[in-house]
């Protein structure tokens, strides 16, 4: 016999409801995302176990030391220490492969390890999308030891202007547009220097691909057994056309026509599935190629994570949920609201304008006081050396805004930016 409690629930179900699910959160040392995931877990009442390559062993909840470069050893340490958990979540890119490996060993729903690996490699992405006949830029792969003649031939085959890309970097680092053979050679040299500085393998190839003009957008979503539920679509009103490709202004919801958005979402979903991704967050970047008289969503890149940096802070979902709460809910197999609840909002990432040492960011109070501005965060400490794209891999900070119209959001972000004076010497 089962005792029924007031409200029709059983003691067993109530007890189950009161037992906080435990989630393994894998947090890389250099991430913007730790605080937002921990806040989300706290709001959801989850028990969190941290695996990290940087966090120290402190008295409260001991951290499991892991290393993204040692998947087997890290997974072994986790399995030996953790006990039962309901989900494994990577807070950021470096932990994606480990999260997939650990989840697989625990029998939890997860992306196949090879799909995560493919999603982190721009060459593998291009090949898989080509095999799936997805719309994407024409591309050629140029081996690390290829001659200049091979490079030039690749550029000629995709046509000018073209884009020279590092295959393993992200955040627009190591990406340059080239308009002719001479700039292609220069771009390739520069990207190789960047790869060397980033200590990437010496045999890493380059991608040379067609430059696709058109409006850029990003699609964030959550996969469940391969089905994509969109959580946010950002327009990039200041879509860059090179030679570097800073991501600066993002606004949401998208103002693109619904049929174009539907086609873009379908393309992103197919792209994820072509990589073999089936569970968890994705962040896809596309351009709407209108060169042939029709708006054609074209895949640029896709990552098996949610939007990077602090950009998710501009999103709020029904019930005040954050994107990180949705990611955690998805990992736990819980239903979650999809589209954001709020009106137009936007985020402006502050690119590094010149190399040097960041001496000051003046005018913060005035920028924050700009009507419509909801937040301003400077994320590089004063005194640190900074590099602009394509060498750099960081942004100076983030400005957030809300408004009754997209125009007012953009206006607020622009005005706030104008009030900042960034001193780099």
């Amino acid at each position, binding site marked *: 016999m089962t005792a029924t*409690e*007031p*409200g029709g629930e059983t*003691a067993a179900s*109530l*007890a189950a*409801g*009161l*037992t*906080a699910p435990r989630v393994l959160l894998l*947090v890389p*040392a*250099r*991430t*913007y995302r*730790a*605080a937002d995931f*921990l*806040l989300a877990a*706290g*709001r*959801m*009442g*989850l*028990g*969190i176990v*941290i695996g*990290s390559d*940087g*966090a*120290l*062993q*402190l*008295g*409260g*909840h001991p*951290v499991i030391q892991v290393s993204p470069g040692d998947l087997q050893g890290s997974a072994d340490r986790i399995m030996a220490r953790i006990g039962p958990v309901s989900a494994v979540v990577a807070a*950021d*890119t470096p932990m994606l492969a480990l999260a997939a490996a650990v989840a697989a060993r625990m029998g939890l729903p997860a992306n196949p390890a090879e799909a995560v690996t493919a999603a982190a490699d721009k060459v593998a992405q291009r090949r898989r999308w080509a095999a799936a006949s997805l719309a994407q830029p024409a591309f050629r792969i140029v081996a690390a030891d290829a001659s200049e003649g091979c490079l030039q031939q690749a550029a000629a085959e995709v046509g000018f202007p073209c884009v020279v890309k590092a295959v393993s970097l*992200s*955040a627009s680092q190591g990406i340059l547009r080239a308009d002719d053979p001479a700039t292609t050679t220069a771009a390739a040299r520069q990207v190789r220097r960047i790869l060397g500085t980033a200590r990437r393998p010496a045999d890493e190839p380059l991608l040379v691909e067609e430059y696709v003009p058109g409006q850029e957008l990003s699609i964030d979503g959550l996969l469940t057994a391969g089905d994509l539920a969109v959580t946010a679509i950002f327009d990039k009103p200041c879509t860059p056309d090179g030679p570097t490709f800073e991501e600066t202004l993002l606004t949401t919801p998208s103002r693109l026509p619904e049929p174009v958005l539907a086609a873009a979402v379908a393309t992103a979903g197919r792209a994820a599935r072509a990589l073999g991704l089936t569970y968890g967050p994705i962040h896809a970047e596309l351009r709407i190629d209108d060169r042939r008289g029709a708006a054609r969503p074209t895949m640029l890149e896709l*990552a098996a*994570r949610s939007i*990077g*940096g602090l950009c998710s802070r501009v999103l709020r979902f029904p019930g005040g949920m954050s994107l990180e709460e949705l990611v955690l809910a998805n990992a736990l197999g819980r239903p979650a609201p999809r589209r954001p609840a709020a009106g137009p909002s936007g985020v402006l*990432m502050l690119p590094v304008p010149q190399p040097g040492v960041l001496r000051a960011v003046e005018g913060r109070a005035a920028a924050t006081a700009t009507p419509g501005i909801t937040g301003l*965060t*400077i*994320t*590089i*400490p*004063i*005194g*640190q050396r900074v590099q602009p794209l394509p060498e750099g*891999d*960081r*942004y100076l900070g983030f400005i957030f805004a809300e408004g009754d119209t997209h125009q007012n959001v953009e206006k607020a972000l622009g005005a706030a930016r104008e009030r900042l004076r960034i001193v780099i010497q």
Partner: protein
Amino acid sequence: MTDLAAKVTAALERSVLPSVIARGAAVRVVAVQDRIAALEVTGSPGAVLPLASRIEAQIRAAVPEIISVRLVAPGAGPPPGSAANLAEQARRILDAEINPVIAAHRGHVAVDGADQGWIRIRLEGGCQGCSLAEVTVRQGIEPLLRARLPGMTGLADVTSHEAGTQPFFSAEKR
């Protein structure tokens, strides 16, 4: 009983109490002050303490006016001594158990003060502006202090992380 206390009591009885009783313990509302609910736990602590975060989440979901929930032992009453006493206790614990460890990352945590059970801390050195500062606070410092200081209501990190000039780890955009 105030309206807020009545709401918390109703939420407790509706969604929490039956399960706690089934686990061999009991819990009741003893005070609601400054939007903080104090719940007295009797019986087996092992039946309730593992549920603490979930109980708080359920009560806060049912009564949004509540910002925090404290579990107290029978007859605990207010914590011994003053806010200064709480701050001093926290300082001793941090100096003994946290600061020697985070010194490995050139970090230090100082107690800024205490007020109504809330302890304010300030992260310094390598911890100030570190991309893992929140992990240090929420997974390391807070649970340790909660376990040692029954009079503690919450922990506030009042650090100006943007002003940190030598964080041990800096975030990278991906």
